[in-house]
């Protein structure tokens, strides 16, 4: 049993903490306040972070990345998220899919895309799964061929012709490369009828549609991907045709594991920010001549906030370590689900501590609550909670 960090882990944590404090925190509230969702993104912070290695952190050194382990990943995400949850996610979203490139893509694909990804500080990745009428049915596939992915891909010689649309796609609008689930056989359930494609942003017939206007995570882009007779070369098929769902079962790259860890680790950082806000407020704001910290209601809220935060942190670190050890455990999935409850309660309690403060003082506390709202559907909806348990209980 050892909760200490090794030197590499500490170094990345400190680098992330410094970048978060010096570069992210100063722009966070301003980006959040921008009303047009098309204009919240800031290439400058992406480039700066990329130069420090945050964009390419998980790619193996053999391919030009840094190959940080899961524990380090969790630490970095939390540190960045403490300054801005959405900016942290913008970086880690690239980790999620660079796992995929280096593991399941063939040599030709790696050559074409991985090199560019490593070298270009503005090369951002995404993956298109969700469609306007199919979300949860892609996560818990059922036997009905009509359920799940509907975006069609039809073979035409050496190309596939894609038609349809994806919704709520992360890094949509800014991404240079997307992984995409498309239906290549609509006569069977998605388990056997979906193929995974690589879609560069300049693919003819492919464009970004509406930019989603979220209450939280303002910085983070989510857009529609629209395919109108888009032509994608067969060389961009990942793995087997109709094998997207089969493939992901066998994905041992850690991409799946990472997905569960990502939101939970990010939540730890946001909780840290909330605790820090409340402690600072309690120590400095007066009511009727006494500091807030002397009020029992404030003390009780802070106790709950800190206990939840520390419990989540300990759980996330255990999940990260288990990933590094290739232990198969439901810890990360539970941590992801649970991070929703913890994060939303902690940020709400922080806002309650600000109830008596001016609206201006509460702006940051309000942002944390709004940022936490995306967890409801990304990490903690009932479908995802049940999916975690079904794996355990069967």
């Amino acid at each position, binding site marked *: 049993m050892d909760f200490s960090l090794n030197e590499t882990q500490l170094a990345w944590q400190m680098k992330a903490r410094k970048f978060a404090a010096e570069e992210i925190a100063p722009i966070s509230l301003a980006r959040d306040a921008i009303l047009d969702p098309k204009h919240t993104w800031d290439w400058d912070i992406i480039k700066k972070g990329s130069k420090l290695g945050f964009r390419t952190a998980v790619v193996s050194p053999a391919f030009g990345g840094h190959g940080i382990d899961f524990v380090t990943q969790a630490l970095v995400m939390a540190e960045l998220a403490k300054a801005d949850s959405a900016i942290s996610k913008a970086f880690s979203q690239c980790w999620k899919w660079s796992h995929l490139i280096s593991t399941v893509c063939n040599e030709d694909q790696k050559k074409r895309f991985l090199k560019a990804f490593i070298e270009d500080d503005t090369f951002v990745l995404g993956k298109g799964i969700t469609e306007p009428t199919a979300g949860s049915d892609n996560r818990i596939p059922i036997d009905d061929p009509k359920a799940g992915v509907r975006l069609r891909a039809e073979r035409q010689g050496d190309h596939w012709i894609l038609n349809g649309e994806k919704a709520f796609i992360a890094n949509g609008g800014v991404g240079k490369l997307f992984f995409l689930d498309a239906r290549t056989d609509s006569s069977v359930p998605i388990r056997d009828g979906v193929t995974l494609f690589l879609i560069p942003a300049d693919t003819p017939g492919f464009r970004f549609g509406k930019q989603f206007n979220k209450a939280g995570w303002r910085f983070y882009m989510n857009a529609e991907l629209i395919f109108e007779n888009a032509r994608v070369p067969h060389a961009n098929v990942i793995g087997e045709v109709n094998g997207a769902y089969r493939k992901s079962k066998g994905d041992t790259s850690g991409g799946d594991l990472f997905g569960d860890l990502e939101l939970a680790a990010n939540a730890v950082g946001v909780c840290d920010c909330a605790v820090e806000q409340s402690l600072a407020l309690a120590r400095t704001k007066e009511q009727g001549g006494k500091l807030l910290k002397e009020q029992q209601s404030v003390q009780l809220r802070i106790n709950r906030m800190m206990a939840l935060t520390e419990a989540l942190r300990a759980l996330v670190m255990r999940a990260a370590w288990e990933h590094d050890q290739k232990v198969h455990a439901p810890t990360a999935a539970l941590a992801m689900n649970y991070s929703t409850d913890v994060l939303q309660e902690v940020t709400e309690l922080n806002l309650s501590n600000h109830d008596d403060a001016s609206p201006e003082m509460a702006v940051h506390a309000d942002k944390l609550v709004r940022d936490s*709202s995306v967890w409801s559907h990304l990490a903690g909806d009932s479908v995802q909670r049940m999916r975690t348990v079904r794996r355990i209980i069967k």
Partner: protein
Amino acid sequence: MYSLHLTPEQLEIRDTVRDFAAREIKPLAEKSQRMEAVDRSPMEGVLTQAAELGLRTLSLPEDMGGAGADALTSVIVAEELAFGDPDTASILAETSRLARVLIGELMSPAQRASCLASLQKNPASQLAWASSLTGTDLGVNYHHPAPPAQMSVTATKSGNNYVLNGVSRGVANAPTAALIAVSATTDAKTKLASKSLTLLVPRGAEGMTIKTHASGRFVGSNGDITFDNCKIPADHLLGKPDAGATVLATLSRLDAVPIRQAVNLGIGRAAYEAAIAYGKLRVQGGRPIIEHQAIALKLADAAVRLETARAAIWAAAWACDHPDARSDGSQSHLPLAAIARIHTAETMYRVAKDCAECFGAMSVMRDMPLHKFVEDARRFLHADGGITEPKLALAEAIAGFRRD
């Protein structure tokens, strides 16, 4: 005798307003550009229509041209309007409740005639009250004698005028009011509220500037009012020169009517009905999601919360007009308005959140209604100092502690 029957008149006005909200308000209110929390300017057309339906003067006595509605009817109407649009509901309810005491009880005949004419002239214009009262700091003063109430605006007599100075913050309807009742202290040194008077200040008075809250923590129209040597003729005084305390007390009693809670209830109901409709449409795992236990449990919890919140609001409203139910022991001696506020604030936020969750990613989109329901319900949870203070006030009542 105990009865939960509404009168035929109450049922009729409820149906009328429900229909008005569904047909005239909701389609405009839920246009995507109005969903944004940051741009919530009042819908003048709707306000005008509502005024013509008599909703702006709902509580004004009938002999003065109002509908003479009791407090219960006013919360029923507020819920229905808020189901369509909580901002519209808040604005109309504020004018209506102020009309009842300002026009109905406190104004002189001349003031009344002038005020009614001004409202008549512009059906979208409203009434407001700038109480200027500063915070009670109940947290730190819980179960201790509190310092006496103070005010942030002063009124100094100068010849035939009063001169107002200071800032009154967070005044409902300030941006849309034709007339603002401004309470101010006459003792610039102590700022004691016990030395208050209340003046009727017309929109556009020289030396008065209104800063509209574009967004923030408020549902409805809201703003800060700054007075900089604002001269108001002495005949704008409300009540007799020595009746300042009575006027302030009469206005303060308005807070016992749980209008804001009714607005919040309307928000919760809007979220709930949206979730039911979507739950029947949206198919997952081969069945509409309303047939999934996970969604069923959320909706059942929401229904329980809506019903219990409505009961708390109606009880508090009815008690405003029936103090005898408390004295004869039929109803609790505890402050029912505080109970309605605490319960409604806590439960409607849960309702809005649980119902929004049925919509997946759509629940966080600023141009869609679900997000707005959650945001609005959260404002009620944290508005006006949050619900810790009402809980402490309730605890003082439980303990029998009296600060007066």
